[in-house]
Every structure is written in structure tokens, then in C-alpha cells.
């Protein structure tokens, strides 16, 4: 089956979620990928949303991180202060799963403003949401975003979130992880993506291993499961 680059990105992100892990699902594409993982290789993935739903098992893709289906299917529903204090901050989350508008060479995340002047930004983004504490308190972080020279930058315009544990960055072109010195480096190229294309879509001089691994293309099962989620996907966060 043919697939789009967005489908590849979503499938690659879903694969990074191991079965049984406790995953704090941030706003954006992460919710689609986490729900795909639950329908494919990770039926026991524990989905935790910042709306206070722990162990949600939605039968359709939620329209927002506070969709009623999350409360109806959760093991427990708690208040927002509690979800951040007792569940996230206390270190009970294995994987923090985030979107981003920009990420930089050192893995800093920006979801606040584009432009040099905070008070008069070129683009005002939504802001932090749960991301700073998801990035800081999860045992590891997965960040998904579309890659371009404007989103993969030398230095973000605003540091909204800093990942404190092992980090995996998944884009429409490939997969990246920090090297020993903390600089983001390519580890996998998605099918059909050249090293050259990944370099061109990166705002710094990208480190590429001698022989980057290749992401396996989406399987028929993965694509079918993803597309079964699709009817409501446009509206999902």
C-alpha cells in the first residue's frame, strides 16, 4: 500500500511506544499515534491525558485531550492538579509524548513564539500547555513534528520545554536522537527519504551516521488501523 509522509511519521511514532508502558499523551499528533499503538502492537499501553484521565481506552479517536470518551473509558479520572502532581511529577510516567513547533540542535522545544521579539512575535503559538513538565518528569520523551529548516533550527526562538531523559524525535523524514554530547543526530531515514533531503530540511549541519538505518514502511495492518481512525482524525489533537 502507498502511504503519505504523515502516515509514516504517525506509524513510526506509534511503534516507539512499547506495550504496557505508561504514556502521557500531549496535545497534537501524539494522541493519534498513541491510539494507533493501542490498536496494533501495544494493546496494554496505558494512556494518560492531562485532562486527568488515567488508562483511557477510547473506541474512537478523541476530538480533544478532554473528550468525554476518555473519562468514560478510563480506569480513573482525577483533577488536573492531581494528574500533574501525583502522577506525572512523581515519576510514574514512562513515556512523555509531545508535539512541537520547533526543536533545536540541543533538543530544546519551542511551542511559544516564532520570532526574536517575545512581545511582538512573528507568530504567536499556543504556548506551553503540559509540555514543560511532561518533558522534564517522564522517564523518556518522544517528540513528533514535521521537519523543515524552520522547525529544525540551530537555536529555538523560545525554550518552552527541555527533555530531561532519553529523547527520540520522529519527523516525516526520519528518526533522531541526541548524541553523547546532546546534539540531535539522525538514526533512521524513512523509506524513500535521502540523506540529502534530511540535511536540507535541517537548520544546522546535521550529523548522519555512516549507514543510517531504514525505517520499515508501514505494514498493511498498521495502515489499515490508522485509516480506520481517520474519519475523525482531522479534528483530533
Amino acid at each position: 500500500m502507498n502511504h503519505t509522509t504523515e502516515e509514516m511519521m504517525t506509524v513510526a511514532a506509534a511503534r516507539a511506544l512499547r506495550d504496557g508502558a505508561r504514556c502521557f499523551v500531549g496535545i497534537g499528533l501524539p494522541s493519534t499515534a498513541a491510539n494507533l499503538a493501542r490498536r496494533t502492537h501495544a494493546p496494554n499501553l496505558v494512556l494518560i491525558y492531562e485532562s486527568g484521565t488515567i488508562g483511557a481506552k477510547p473506541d474512537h479517536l478523541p476530538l480533544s485531550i478532554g473528550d468525554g470518551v476518555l473519562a468514560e473509558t478510563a480506569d480513573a479520572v482525577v483533577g488536573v492538579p492531581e494528574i500533574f502532581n501525583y502522577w506525572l511529577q512523581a515519576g510514574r510516567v514512562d513515556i512523555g509524548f509531545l508535539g512541537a513547533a520547533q526543536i533545536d540542535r540541543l533538543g530544546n522545544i519551542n511551542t511559544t513564539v516564532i520570532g526574536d521579539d517575545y512581545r511582538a512575535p512573528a507568530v504567536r503559538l499556543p504556548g506551553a500547555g503540559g509540555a514543560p513538565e511532561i518533558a522534564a518528569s517522564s522517564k523518556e520523551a518522544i517528540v513528533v513534528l514535521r521537519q523543515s529548516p524552520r522547525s529544525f533550527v540551530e537555536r529555538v526562538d523560545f525554550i518552552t520545554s527541555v527533555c530531561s531523559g532519553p529523547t527520540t524525535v520522529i519527523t516525516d523524514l526520519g528518526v533522531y536522537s541526541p548524541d553523547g554530547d546532546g546534539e540531535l543526530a539522525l538514526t533512521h531515514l524513512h523509506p524513500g527519504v535521502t540523506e540529502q533531503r534530511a540535511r536540507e530540511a535541517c537548520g544546522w549541519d546535521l550529523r548522519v551516521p555512516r549507514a543510517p538505518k531504514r525505517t520499515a514502511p508501514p505494514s498493511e495492518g498498521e495502515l489499515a488501523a490508522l485509516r480506520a481512525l481517520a474519519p475523525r482524525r482531522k479534528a483530533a489533537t
Partner: protein
Amino acid sequence: MTALLPLPDAVADLIGDGDTVALEGFTHLIPFAAGHEIIRQRRRELTLVRMTPDVVYDQLIGAGCARKLVFSWGGNPGVGSLHRFRDAVENGWPSNVELEEHSHAGMANRYAAGASGLPFAVLRGYTGTDLMRRTANVAPIECPFTGQELTAVAALRPDVTVVHAQRADRSGNVQLWGITGVQKEAVLAARRCLVTVEEIVDELTPRPGAVVLPSWVVTAVAHCPRGAHPSYAHGYYERDNDFYLAWDAISRDREAFAGWIREHLGAAV
């Protein structure tokens, strides 16, 4: 004791120009009807507080009610940008809006501190981010036992908090369920509070997962069926997702926005 009031009277009584006003509801039970009444009554110079200033605050900002916004995430959930919010921040239309931004954890703890009668709360957060430079309401604090450095956030004490709930009884006891968010903390942190409700009932029968606010912490209740539309009220109606999608186009254009406000709220912008 709680006053049972028509919504216009409740807004007129509780909310004044220049007040710090929090409308809360985390995706669920967003008090849209109350927000619309604030626009109709042309409140000005408000400091608007809300973790997730979504469409309702886009409307208030576009209508010129806001002087300042205290928040942690401003977007149209599941859709994209808030265009009125962006127009105010990027272009100063209809006026400049001062921003004080936090993380969700920071905002939730600020409300919890306010509800607890404490001047601050402690969390692990903000470390290494540029958020700390942008407000005086975040500061490092040292643990007196271990010497660890943590983050303190100042308590939030809104003049008025407005929330929407499924039900109240005739005495003004309030019950809400489903995703209950930060509503209890936002109500208890405020000096006054207004609760709009889907139903007024004789008795609040217990419900799994329900939060109950006793009448003596509720200043006023207003009966507003569908008062959370286009968001949803668990057990009453679903989110009107078409509206959220349509809002993207309406709010992109200043004229289209003004026309919508005129047509749907009967208010001039």
C-alpha cells in the same frame, strides 16, 4: 447563601470592569454562555485567567474585553490557532493584550495554592525554560530539609471564577462530573464565583466521579441549559465539533468575527 439569578443579573452583580476573571473548564463544561454575557455587557480591562484560553477567550479578546491574559495553552483544540488571540498579540487588534504565561502544572498549582489559602505552591517545573524570565510569579525555592532547588509559583486569587456544571439544587449546591479539571480549585481560589448549570433539581443524587461544591462556597447560580455549547456537557450533549472547525474561518477575519458577534450575541464589537 447562594443567589439563584438570571445570567444577565449574575454577570452584572459579580463581574466588574478591571476584575481578574477566571472561566474554567478543561475542554469539557466550558462556560460559553457566561462568556457571551460578559461580551454583551461590554466588560472592559479584564485580566482573563484560564489554563486553556480556547474559543471562548478568543471571543472575549476579539470583543475587546481583555487587558491581560494569564494562561498556559491558547489554541483551538483539535483545530489550530486562535486567530483573535493571535491578532491581538501580533497586531494589537482590537487592543494590546498583556500576556502572563505558565505551564499547565504551574497554573494548576497556582489555583491549588489559592484554594488552600497559601501564597504559593511548590513544584518541579519551569527549570531551564524561558518561561521563568517572563513573569515575576515564578521563583526558585530551596527545600529546607534536602537543599534541593524547586520552583515556587504564586497563588492565583481571581476576583471571580465562572464555571459551568451539570446540576445545582435549589439551595445552590453544585454537582459536576466527567472530566472535572481544575474547576474546584478555581472556584475555591476566587473571592466570588458564578456557576451556570444545565439543570436545577430538587436533590443531587450521588454520581460516580462527581465533584460537589456546597452552596456556601457558591456566590451565584444561573440556570443556562446548553450553557457550555459548543463544548460538551457530559451526560447532556456532545461537543459541536463543526462549530470549532467553523470558528477557524470566522475568526480569521475581523469583519467576519464582528459579524458573528453581532448576529449571535447581539453585541457590537
